[in-house]
């Protein structure tokens, strides 16, 4: 199995498209970092304590306004609480771009990484058919099951490599250009002011983004295996990846969309608690995704093993 993956890896990196994918990713990561640095205006943070006091006074003044609506009251109360917290705990605000901020940017481009992995994912099987090399590949003492498995593993390895590369680069570039954060970000959870831990947020974003990543690759792989046409497979998977939420909103009126994988594949919904259909539990989402993953895989393997090769 190792030598089969070695083969697929070799073929993948001999294609110009793979290098173009890598180039796009590098361009985005480096480009955005440099752009951030160039456009950044250093804000002087030495007198932050006075500013926080101003915030408190401002909030107090606003709260005295008669007939203030509930939403505004909450907003000013939170403003007051946060400023007070900063003064009490000597926690300066983070106003300038930082290494942590750049790392968060890395996590936010998981959609791009997914998109870039879907392209080889859709073509790794189908291109063998359009090139006619499939008959050379299959007339070997290796089962079709193993060949397809090696291709699937290779694509996930490729995608994971892109993720690791993104993590390393955004951290390194962030550190070189901006240095580590000098302040602290705050959030209010259930009325209590808390310090946010950017690093763990970044980590969680990466982990939760793996849902969309995995499902999109499995879907592309499945379409590529069944239709044996790279262009159809790439187009369909891109469509579903980019327009997923839109498709769900359209279908919502006609079918119970909570049983469609597209409703759940973006697991970051559970992180932000902003659901584009209606609130579900993480276990519900994971169950739906696992079932669809099994279906995609089963269909891919069945068609690949059973089919008569005429290419």
């Amino acid at each position, binding site marked *: 199995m190792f030598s089969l993956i070695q083969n697929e890896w070799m073929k993948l990196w001999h*294609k110009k498209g793979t290098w173009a994918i890598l180039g796009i990713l590098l361009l985005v990561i480096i480009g955005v970092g440099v752009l951030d640095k160039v456009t950044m205006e250093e804000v002087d943070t030495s007198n932050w304590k006075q500013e926080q006091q101003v915030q408190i006074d401002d909030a107090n003044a606003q709260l005295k306004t008669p007939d203030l609506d509930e939403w505004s009251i909450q907003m000013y109360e939170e403003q007051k609480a946060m400023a007070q917290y900063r003064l009490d705990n000597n926690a300066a605000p983070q106003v300038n771009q930082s290494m942590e901020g750049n790392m968060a940017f890395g996590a936010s481009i998981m959609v791009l990484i997914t998109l870039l992995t879907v392209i080889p994912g859709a073509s790794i099987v189908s291109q063998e058919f359009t090139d006619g090399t499939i008959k050379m590949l299959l007339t070997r003492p290796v089962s079709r099951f193993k060949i397809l498995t090696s291709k699937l593993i290779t694509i996930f390895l490729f995608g994971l490599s892109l993720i690791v590369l993104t993590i390393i680069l955004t951290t390194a570039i962030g550190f070189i250009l901006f240095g580590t954060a000098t302040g602290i970000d705050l959030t209010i959870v259930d009325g209590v002011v808390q310090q946010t831990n950017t690093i763990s947020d970044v980590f969680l974003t990466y982990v939760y983004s793996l849902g969309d990543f995995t499902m999109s690759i499995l879907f592309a792989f499945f379409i590529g295996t069944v239709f044996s046409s790279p262009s159809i497979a790439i187009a369909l998977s891109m469509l579903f990846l980019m327009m997923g939420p839109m498709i769900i909103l359209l279908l919502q009126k006609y079918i119970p969309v909570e049983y469609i994988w597209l409703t759940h594949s973006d697991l970051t919904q559970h992180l932000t608690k902003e659901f584009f259909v209606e609130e579900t539990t993480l276990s519900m989402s994971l169950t739906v995704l696992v079932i669809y993953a099994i279906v995609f895989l089963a269909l891919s393997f069945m068609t690949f093993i059973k089919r008569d090769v005429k290419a």
Partner: protein
Amino acid sequence: MSKPIVQLKNITKIIRGKTLIDNMSLELFPGQITGFLGPNGAGKTTTIRLMTGLMHLTSGTITIEGASIADDYEKAIANVGVIVENPEMYKYMSGYKNLLHFSRMHNGVTKARIDEVINQVGLTKRIHEKVSTYSLGMRQRLGLAQALLHDPKFLILDEPTNGLDPAGIREFRTYLRKIAQENNVSIFVSSHLLSEIELMCDRVVVIQNGKLIDERMIQSDEKTRMQLKAEPSGVVENYLSSNGYVFTLHEGVFLLDLKEEKVPVLINELVAQQVQIFAISAVHETLEEQFLQMTGGGQIV
């Protein structure tokens, strides 16, 4: 005759109600080169795809060295080297990387073996260039190389000389003969070049409408009829009849029964008698004539 290495027993392939291969049986033997002929759409490529496991049988069995293609694929195919139609290689990689790729899928193919095969097919100079820069003939050579990597006992070749120049075809033919004889490899060649099959093969099987319609041996190295053009014809006629040759004379050309190995003797004798020899060549009813007779003149290609 020795035990067959490949056995096709009552194989049938039906796709969407259409019978492509109809209850066909065939045996192939070690050390023998079998030509596979048939008109367009007769089922040649389908048969080869069934033998290599690219397509699945509807019924019947195919065994290679006792292992069934359907039930024991990996064992059966381990002994087979294949070129199906044009050898489609990974064009974006070098010839060497292609061979490396396929060698990893077989057990025990060493780097030394890869180099040996490259040398055998004569690609040493350009093996590290991308396949996309290769001519059709070079791709055929690379195709042969990948089929030979693992030293197969059974070689399936579909239109192998397509794109080779005459020198290449000749070299290829000699090479196939050599591995058939020396390594006792069984070779199954489909081709539309009938003269090619005739020169290359020991045996020919003909398929039409998914059925075998004929099977015969070729004795290409024992041509018994020669045609001779020589002057003055009176002297030649005199010499032939007085030395007991069976011959006819037709428009200044002699047709005589003569084994190939006896040709130099006759030439020496005639030259000694001041005869001018313009041509001597073997005459045989061509396979093409036989083939067209058998298949009713259908398209061959």
